[in-house]
């Protein structure tokens, strides 16, 4: 088995799973359909192309920096008729950083890694107006350590400088991960983000079971808290 790790970072991201019509919401973490769609696009697959091989990949996300949700208000007019279209709300995750990983057959992972490095359709973070601010590929891992959980333990914490500084007191940081659940996992939630077809005429998604967990990674900016300095304002004032 091999694993491809991706860094999803940018000022704005949007990962919708039940986002339709005029209210386009976003989940708190990248969806499997969003990430697989980005990979399929990088390979240059058509929207109507078969993506069942990608859907079989084991998928997981690590939350390196949660970000905040912002709401964008949008109006549009039809170019031909000038008619006003329904006012829409679009939600984004601002200032978030994720590491997403897919695990599967070595040849497919290698092909996806090549595609991510020279994509046919340009990658974006869930919505076309959200280009990534860093290179997307962290790298492909194969060999014995190529299990998604291990990769999530070994990839360096990707959070931004300002965010790391805030947690500089912690030697190791615990980061939430959301994995495809295995058979027999008890604690799981379902989410409708397993792509069956990206065909714009009838997009179809199946349910996916997700298991929440945490991994600990070392904090590269960790500093031991400084000893309190001894400060005595009295001596300069003289006297006894």
């Amino acid at each position, binding site marked *: 088995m091999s694993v491809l790790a991706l860094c999803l970072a*940018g*000022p*704005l991201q949007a990962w919708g799973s039940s986002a339709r019509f005029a209210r386009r919401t976003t989940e708190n973490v990248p969806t499997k359909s969003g990430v697989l769609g980005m990979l399929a696009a990088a390979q240059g697959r058509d*929207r109507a192309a078969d993506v069942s091989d990608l859907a079989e990949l084991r998928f997981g996300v690590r939350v390196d920096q949660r*970000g*905040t949700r*912002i*709401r*964008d*208000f*949008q109006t*549009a007019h*039809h*170019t*031909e008729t000038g008619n006003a*279209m329904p*006012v829409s709300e679009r939600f*984004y995750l*601002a*200032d978030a950083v994720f590491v997403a990983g897919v695990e599967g057959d070595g040849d497919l992972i290698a092909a996806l890694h090549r595609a991510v*490095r*020279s*994509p046919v*359709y*340009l*990658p*974006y973070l869930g919505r*076309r*107006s*959200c*280009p*990534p*601010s*860093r*290179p997307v590929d962290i790298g492909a891992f194969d060999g014995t350590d190529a299990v998604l959980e291990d990769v999530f333990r070994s990839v360096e914490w990707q959070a*931004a*400088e*300002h*965010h790391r500084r805030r947690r500089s007191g912690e030697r190791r940081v615990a980061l939430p991960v959301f994995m495809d659940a295995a058979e027999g996992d008890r604690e799981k939630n379902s989410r409708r983000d397993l792509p069956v077809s990206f065909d*714009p*005429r009838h997009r179809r998604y199946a349910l996916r079971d997700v298991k929440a967990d945490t991994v600990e990674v070392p904090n590269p900016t960790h500093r031991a808290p400084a000893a309190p300095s001894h400060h005595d304002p009295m001596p300069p004032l003289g006297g006894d």
Partner: protein
Amino acid sequence: MTRTILDLHVLQTVPPSNLNRDDTGTPKTALYGGARRSRVSSQAWKRATRAAFAELLAPEELGVRTKRVAEFVAERIHELDDSIDRSEALALAAETVKAATGSKIEVPKRKSGKKTDDGASEPPAPQSSYLMFLSAQQRDALAQLAVKGRADIKAFFKDKDNKEEAKSSANTRHSVDIALFGRMVADGADINVDAATQVAHAISVHAVENESDYYTAVDDRRKDEEPGAGMIGTVEFNSATLYRYAALDVDRLAANLGRGLRDGEEPTTPVRRAVEAFVEGFVDSMPSGKINTFGNHTRPEAVIVKLRGTRPVNFVSAFEQPVVADVGSGYLRKACERLADHISQIEEAYGTHADTTTWVLRAGANTEPLAGLGAESSMGELVESVGRAAADRQAETA
């Protein structure tokens, strides 16, 4: 295949303004690097770019103007499916163009059949009664429809959806626009065109707090027994040095537009003209929000354009840590220093491809840190040389 990707980076300062507001009238913002930034949404700047683009490039430049539309489409039908012979292809093409434009396509009265090599006379091709304009992309779309409805073309266009599809295929303004920007509002026929450009939300390079302007307005016909203002209110605004980013997939654009069709023109002419118009349109446009109130007609102080064979790179991380202004220094100089540092660091870390070309347009002493990053050009030179370089690369890959 070598790829051709263009990325554009713009630093632009706007005075107090409200370019893009939400439903409460507040200028849009976003959090980035832990600080609140002024934001102008991609759709707002894309609309301004689209309007500028339409002024800069007439769609007629990207195709041919002819009465012989039936022949023109029929040739393409035959290329798509060579089991369709000339006369059938002509009949299909005539019906399709008729459905698309509603105009008559008939054999001109005074024409007798052309003499072919073997002396037999070919039936003359039907023509439209006036000059019609078609781009390569429209010709393709119409030919594909004709092949699809081959079995019974008249019945095929009785179907409302098919007729709609033909109509929107022949709508030129629409087709050039869609090739570049994709669809903002979904219509059936253009659902399969993927936009060639990506535009990011513009954000300020520094932290911003919105301010509000309290105003009173006087009623000019007020009677003296009613003192006081005619109305009062507030307008919110901010001022910002914005980082704007767009990427253009030139290969995708070329595929969406098709090749040049006119005699004596390069096949890459449509893509060159569209690239030129896009660069100029994106750099020099301004969303119109509250512009009469604030008159914020500024032009970018700095523009960096890179043409690459690999995926585009967004330099927004240069400003992830918000720029802080010293007293009397403003933001622009520091933003330029940051951007120059960031570009060289990224390129050192990831390497640069030999075939990356960079252009820099800058104005004023504050943009000096960007000098030397690429070929310094004026707007006219920039537009022309970027267009030429993109077209030359297309010619190599074609």
